[in-house]
């Protein structure tokens, strides 16, 4: 049928795994906003949820690193991390290989993709699903943009990936929901973990809400690394969602939570023509 829902959210493993170490009120407010996003998503009765993630060497490594990859299986599993460490039990997650194949075929008209018939979800997908589809009952189409191992795809290619995704979603009879997950500024898994450039985040989120393509694509990786850390490279997933949704964004939650190592974000975007 078409794209029926679009949004972005944070996926840092601390959100679930270190929830007990954060201020309870602050953590609960964010978790509540995250679950509310899941309720808005469910209200659209999606047949499948595309999660555009920036995974972290769970499936893709520097021996064979795709810029873009799309899952093409009927069943996935996760988390790949220790369940106790992540605070999410190991579970099977439904996919839809036939739908994946149709989406991939259409996207390939304009973007070169890798596909994967095997995919073990890491926190980049499991943390969002924990809040958005907590019963793991919505078929997931995982998509990955390499934001970890440079050279990274240029931002304008992440935009082109989002445009292809939209065209593909509109070409199938199913109702498709889309969530991009990642961080804005953050320095995850380093001694700088917990450092957050809130001013940079808020400027990025302004550009994202306005869906200002030129402003979103004007970041250079050098400036992003300097101002937003290596985690800032994950803006590619949020940019892809803006390109796909073509609408205006609404920020539902933003708060820098150092224990979660990221500015915790929940936002939706209207579906534009």
């Amino acid at each position, binding site marked *: 049928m078409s794209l029926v829902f679009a949004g972005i959210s944070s996926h840092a*493993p*601390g959100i679930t795994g*270190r929830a007990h*170490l954060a201020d309870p009120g602050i953590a609960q407010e964010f978790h509540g906003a995250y679950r509310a996003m899941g309720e808005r998503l469910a209200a659209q009765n999606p047949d499948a949820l595309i999660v555009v993630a920036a995974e*972290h*060497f*769970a*499936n893709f*490594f*520097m*021996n064979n690193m795709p810029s873009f990859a799309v899952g093409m299986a009927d069943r996935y599993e996760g988390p*790949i*991390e*220790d369940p106790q*460490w992540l605070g999410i039990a190991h579970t099977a997650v439904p996919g839809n290989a036939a739908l994946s194949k149709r989406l991939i075929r259409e996207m390939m008209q304009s973007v070169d993709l890798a596909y994967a018939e095997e995919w*073990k979800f890491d926190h980049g997908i499991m943390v969002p699903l924990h809040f958005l589809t907590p019963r793991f009952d919505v078929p997931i189409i995982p998509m990955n943009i390499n934001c*970890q*191992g*440079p050279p990274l795809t240029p931002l304008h290619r992440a935009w082109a990936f989002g445009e292809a995704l939209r065209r593909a979603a509109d070409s199938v009879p199913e109702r498709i929901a889309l969530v991009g997950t990642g961080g804005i500024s953050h*320095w*995850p*898994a*380093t*001694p*700088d*973990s*917990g*450092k957050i450039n809130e001013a940079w985040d808020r400027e990025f989120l302004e550009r994202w809400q306005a869906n200002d393509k030129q402003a979103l694509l004007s970041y250079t990786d050098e400036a992003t*690394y300097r101002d937003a*850390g*290596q985690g800032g490279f994950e803006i590619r997933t949020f940019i892809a969602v803006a390109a796909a949704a073509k609408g205006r964004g609404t920020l539902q939650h933003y708060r820098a939570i*150092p*224990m979660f*190592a990221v500015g915790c974000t929940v936002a939706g975007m209207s579906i534009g023509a």
Partner: protein
Amino acid sequence: MSLYQMQKFLFDINRDRAVQQRYREDLTGLLDRYELTPDERGAIAARDIGLLYVLGANGQLLMHYAAFLGMPWADYIAAMRAGVSAHGPVRAGIYHMTTEMDEKVAGV
């Protein structure tokens, strides 16, 4: 090239239960499969997260390895800082520490 091999070891152990089992039963045999420098091999054998960080291990790989070793979050952060303190700045990769030695950025 060797940093690649060290990270390949971390990638393998993070995602493959058979490699985890071999790690427990035959670490020497497991490490023989990778072209590691003596520093890298020694750091893995000694579970020296701080030195692995200084040698350039990507944090996403290192974080999960630390979790596999059962290291609490605060100890993981402290181990990387101790590594920089003992061995100097990160030598390779893209993960250079940008905060001061005594900063507790995440509150731990």
